[in-house]
């Protein structure tokens, strides 16, 4: 794990040739993406450079509180980002914030408690970023589906409420399908991992000179950690968010 390599600036600059190629293809085929490609390239340079310095600072200061603050900021902005995908769910920010916070805290807490990773910035920052990022995607997909399904299933849900079912009982099939769609992407990509694509961590470690055995082991730990985080965030987000469609008297709110 101590392997490290030097990447020179000229190497980064040389890789921009491929950006030029992408822009050329877009121009030649009139795909109209040249501007977006330039914006994406500039943003990636600025954002990643800033994050690189931020992470370096956090590593140098080596304070667990600074790490927790960074993770809290990630959770907050993750919830804001996910809310845009969940625009058909009333007041989705609260459920998303709680889902991301719980997913991050419980999975990071578990891997530290089991002794898999040390509670140091070097582990918590990158792993936390992956955990929260994947939790964000999963909860956004789940709530996006929930919003669509609740709209489609209005008649069936109200007919079930009319039988004296609770809001939870009436929404159960909808909640189940939403949870499933939040989790399925990662479950599927975990099935095909290594066959169709090499996951990023493993690629990074191999490039950095680590042994393939170490790279694979670390990648497996991360995949399983992400499965846990994705399940928790999709579950918590859907279970909290479906309630916002109902009044306390188990009535469907007007859309």
């Amino acid at each position, binding site marked *: 794990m101590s392997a490290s390599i030097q990447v020179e600036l000229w190497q980064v600059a040389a890789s921009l040739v491929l950006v030029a190629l992408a822009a050329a293809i877009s121009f030649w085929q009139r795909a109209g993406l040249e501007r977006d490609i330039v914006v994406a390239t500039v943003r990636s340079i600025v954002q990643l450079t800033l994050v690189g310095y931020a992470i370096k600072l956090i590593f140098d200061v080596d304070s667990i509180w600074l790490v927790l603050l960074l993770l809290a900021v990630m959770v907050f902005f993750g919830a804001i980002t996910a809310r845009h995908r969940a625009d058909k769910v009333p007041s989705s920010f609260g459920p998303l914030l709680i889902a991301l916070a719980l997913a991050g805290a419980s999975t990071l807490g578990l891997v530290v408690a089991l002794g898999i990773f040390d509670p140091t910035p070097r582990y918590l920052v990158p792993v936390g970023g992956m955990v929260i990022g994947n939790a964000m995607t999963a909860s956004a997909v789940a709530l996006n589906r929930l919003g669509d399904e609740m709209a489609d299933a209005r*008649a*069936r849900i*109200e*007919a*079930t*409420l*009319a*039988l*004296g*079912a*609770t809001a939870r*009982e009436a929404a159960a*099939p909808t909640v189940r399908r939403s949870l499933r769609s939040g989790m399925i992407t990662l479950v599927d990509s975990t099935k095909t991992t290594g066959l169709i694509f090499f996951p990023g961590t493993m690629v990074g470690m191999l490039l950095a000179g680590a042994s393939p055995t170490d790279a694979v082991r670390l990648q497996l730990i991360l995949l399983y950690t992400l499965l846990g985080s994705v399940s928790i965030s999709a579950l918590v987000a859907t279970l909290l968010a479906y309630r916002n469609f109902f*009044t306390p*008297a*188990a*009535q*469907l709110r*007007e859309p």
Partner: protein
Amino acid sequence: MLFELRDVGLDRGGRAVLDSFSAAIPEGATAIVGPSGAGKSTLLRLLNRLADPGRGEIAYRGRPITSYEPLALRREVALVPQLPALLEGTVESNLRYAAELAGEPLEVDETLRRAGLDPSFAGRDVAKLSVGEQQRAMLARALAQRPAVLLLDEPTSALDHAARDAVEATLARLRSESNLSLVLVSHDPEQARRLGDRVLEMPA
């Protein structure tokens, strides 16, 4: 008095769906007629608290309707919506779900027969039923809860004449067999007269 409504009003999207509506609905069979958009379906939804009015008061058996626990009220005052919306599965699984919610024993054949369906429908997949059959399965599902009041929203709107006559006969038989009260919404004044002991007209 079964239901009493005083100055009931409800807005939706800035428009009054119901405005200052007052009525008394006694036990027995009451048919509600009125032009489309008069708020007939909304009125039924107010009677088992699928919605609450923005203004006015509703009483059920002399007590404010909000003083009843909503889930228990809905098992006692069953609503059969205009559009069938069964749960995935068989007719029998739908009946069983409803009966279990109400804590009532279920006699599948008897319940189907009361709704005018042959007992062979029990094992049928609801997705493969015609709309008319689904409507009767919805009625059977409501009956599986042994409600005291049945709220029916256009119970024959999706049916041809033969099926309509069958459902009307079913409803007439239900009334003579039990002391079930019916509140029925219809756009057809003839049907309202055939099925209701009294007809309540809603203004446009």
